[in-house]
Structure formats: C-alpha cells, structure tokens
C-alpha cells in the first residue's frame, strides 16, 4: 500500500505564495488571479448571506439591507468586485485556451533566440491586459456617472 502521495514537482509550499523566482508578466497575472479569486470568494460569502438570510425575512428587512448596501463604501467595493471578476474571467479564459492546447501556433525549429510557448503567446497576453484595463476604465466611467 502506498501511503504517501507522489512528491509534487516544483513544490514550493506557502513560500511560493510570496516569491517563486523569475517574475514575468504571466507570473504577476498568476498572483492577481489568486488575489482576485480569494477576494471573490469573500464577496460571495457575504453576498449569499445577504441574498438568502435577509431576503427570506420579507420586504422591510430586504429594503433595510439594500439601504445599507447602497452606502458609498459598499458601492466602491462592488466596483472592485466587478473589476476583479473581469480580470479573473479574462485571465481564466486565457488559461483555459492555454491549458487545452489551443492557439499553440506553428512549430518552429529551435534556433536562437528560442521561442517558447509562453513567449509566443505574450503579445496576446498583453492585449488581454489592455482589454482588462479598458474595461476597468469603462466601468469606472459608468460608476462615476452614477448608474450603479
């Protein structure tokens, strides 16, 4: 019987949360993906409690809860949640495309300077980051217009 699991490759443990060496664009996106993911979990936790426990108790409690949540600080929080979702969603779609082996490009002979898969995809990654920034700016404009 094998009691111990196979040792995981490149295992850094919690130390890898702080620093994993050789940080490039994709590694910062990984960090942001994790931070926004944890933030969205925290939001969903509060959001689910608000929309179940406080909703089932009827109109008065619901309207009091919504009045509390329309406080400007909660509104700023909502804006951050939408930006975090945009980042997590677009970066997640990039990871899905990468993971399932789409958009690999044509194979090239290994001649210096070498083209690895990550570097080949980097122009697309930079476009994705630009789209996230444009979306965040557009949402900020809509937010400041008071549509939320």
């Amino acid at each position, binding site marked *: 019987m094998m009691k111990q699991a196979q040792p995981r490759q490149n295992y850094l*443990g919690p130390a890898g949360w702080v620093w994993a060496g050789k940080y490039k664009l994709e590694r910062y996106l990984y960090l942001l993906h994790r931070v926004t993911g944890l933030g969205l979990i925290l939001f969903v936790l509060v959001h689910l409690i608000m929309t179940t426990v406080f909703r089932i108790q009827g109109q008065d409690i619901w309207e009091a809860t919504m009045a509390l949540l329309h406080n400007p600080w909660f509104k700023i929080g909502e804006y951050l949640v939408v930006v975090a979702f945009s980042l997590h969603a677009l970066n997640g779609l990039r990871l*899905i495309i990468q993971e399932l082996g789409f958009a690999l490009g044509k194979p090239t002979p290994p001649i210096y300077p070498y083209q690895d898969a990550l570097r080949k995809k980097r122009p697309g990654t930079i476009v994705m980051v630009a789209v996230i920034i444009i979306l965040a700016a557009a949402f900020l404009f809509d937010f400041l217009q008071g549509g939320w």
Partner: protein
Amino acid sequence: MRRTYLWFFQLVTGALIAVLLGIHIVVQHFDAILVFFGVDAAQSTSWAAMTARASQGIWVFIYIALLAVGLYHGINGLRNIILEVTRSTRAERAVTWAMIVIGIIFFAGGTYVPVALLTG
C-alpha cells in the same frame, strides 16, 4: 486521475461562470446598456424588481446554476490553495471533506430560499 477531473471541472465551471455571472452583473449594474436593447432593468435591487425575478422559473434556474458552478469553482480553488501548505494525504482528505461540507451547507441554503420564494 481524480485530480485531473477536479481540474477539468474547474475549467468547465470557469467558462460557465463567465457566461452566467456576466448575465447577472449586466442585469444588476448596466441598466443603461439594457435600456439600449429595450429592457427596463432600472432599480434592479428594489423589492418589486427582486420579487418579479424571483417569481420567474428561468431566473431561479440561472441563479441556482450559477450558485452550483460558482461554489464548485470557488471551493475547489480554495482547496488547491490550502493544499499547498501541506503534502500529507491525511490533511488532504480532511480539507476535502471540510470543503464538501461547506459546499453542501451553502448550496442547501442558497437553493432553499429561491425555491421557497418561487413556490410561495
């Protein structure tokens, strides 16, 4: 093998969330866009608008589907982060069961309320 399936479902639920949560956020926040397309979603958090959505089966279905895939995606992601702390299989099993229990509690609560409101 099990880890492969868990990761594959992480990808599938991620793509589903991008669609379902996109709908949810547009309805809740981008009423100007919806007015452009001829849908009036102003005051989406008012009691009237909320009960109107809660009385439509399609909205209840969308919310419960979003709850299911969102809980899986979030809980599996959190589990992956927590399991980076330890390499012991016993701890892995304990964390997995804790996550399953948390998921069932939130899914039960989050399903009971919309179904109770839909059926009166």
